[in-house]
């Protein structure tokens, strides 16, 4: 069934149709939450809450980009979680990116290990960014949204998206300087 039809049915309270939408977007929402919060258990909670909020509020969705609307809810839930985590800091018991979670695809063990290491390193660097810059970087560079979609998700102007993304990347460039240098050398060798 088309996404449009699923949304219409969900608006009428059809939970089954809504759960088909959940199926389609849960990976995206969970990955956003994981990168925003840095803890698997918190990301699980945030994703579930985001979908519950979305189901309760789907009547107010007035058409347009459903993915951006859903990610906006997820981003807001993550902001709430971050605020509460700041108020009640806890030591995470779970790994950021565990073995069973990373998509292996068709990689060699070496490539897989490198991917995991890179993922963990970037997650650590992302965690040091202010939440708005982090969100802009995740949405554009990792999730592949357009500037326009990000403006919808973050409820801000395109100029603000541009500036947040620029500052976030600049900060990451400094934090990942060593890794970036290696990557540049790799790139030159390939050339």
């Amino acid at each position, binding site marked *: 069934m088309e996404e449009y039809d699923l949304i219409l049915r969900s608006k009428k309270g059809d*939970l089954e149709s*809504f*759960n088909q939408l*959940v*199926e389609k977007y*849960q*990976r995206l929402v*969970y*990955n956003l939450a*994981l990168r925003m919060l840095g803890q*698997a258990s918190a990301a*699980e909670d945030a*994703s*579930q809450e985001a*979908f*519950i*909020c*979305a*189901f*309760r*509020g789907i009547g*107010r*969705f*007035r*058409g*347009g*980009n459903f993915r*951006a*609307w859903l990610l*906006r*809810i997820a981003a*807001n*839930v993550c902001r*709430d979680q971050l605020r509460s985590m700041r108020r009640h800091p806890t030591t995470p018991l779970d790994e950021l*990116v565990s073995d069973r*979670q*990373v*998509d292996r695809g068709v990689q060699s063990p070496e490539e897989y290990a490198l*991917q*995991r290491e*890179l993922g963990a390193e*970037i997650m650590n660097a992302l965690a040091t960014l202010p939440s708005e810059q982090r969100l802009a*970087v995740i949405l*554009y*560079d*990792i999730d592949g949204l357009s*500037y326009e979609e990000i403006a919808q998700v973050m*409820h801000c102007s395109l100029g603000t998206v*541009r500036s947040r*993304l*620029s500052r976030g*990347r*600049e900060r*990451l*460039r400094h934090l*990942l300087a060593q890794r*970036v240098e290696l*990557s*540049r050398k790799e*790139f030159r060798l390939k050339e």
Partner: protein
Amino acid sequence: MFKRKTCHKVRRLLSPYLDQRLSLLERVFVEGHLAGCALCGSELESLRATVDLLHRVPMVSVPRSFAVAAMEPKRRVVSFALLSTATAIAVSVLAFFFVGDAFNLFESSVVEEGLKGAAPLPVPTPTPPPPVVFDAEMVGAQATSRWPVWQIETALIGVVVVLAAVTLILWRRRRRARDVRVGST
């Protein structure tokens, strides 16, 4: 000094330059500067490598399904409805007291002495008797109240203010939560 300022300006534009989100004028400005500034060129390459790294971040699979189960109605709605009803009732009672007070509904009958001062009517008389005019101040001064109206009104005003404030806070919080969580597009 001038060059450093230009470099600073160009570096702020490097990220949107990579994404091809600059206007034609900005792009010409950045490309013109990059052609003659090795340092900014190196910054651009470094930024490109960072972005390339970010693109290679692996996606993580979901640990479980986030399908939504059938939900119970929210509890907060009931408490908010109760509170707003209580506020409305308190406002109505207060309005009733004000109106009653304005029309002297809560006062005992007018003291007869207040009317005794009127001139005696001549008997028989061809002319109609002069109309009796109530002196409001005099009547007010001599009337006695059966209810402690002012105390009740003051207490009611307090109750209304508190209830209205709590209802308003709750309403704003609910609206903010709705706007924040479920932004409309």
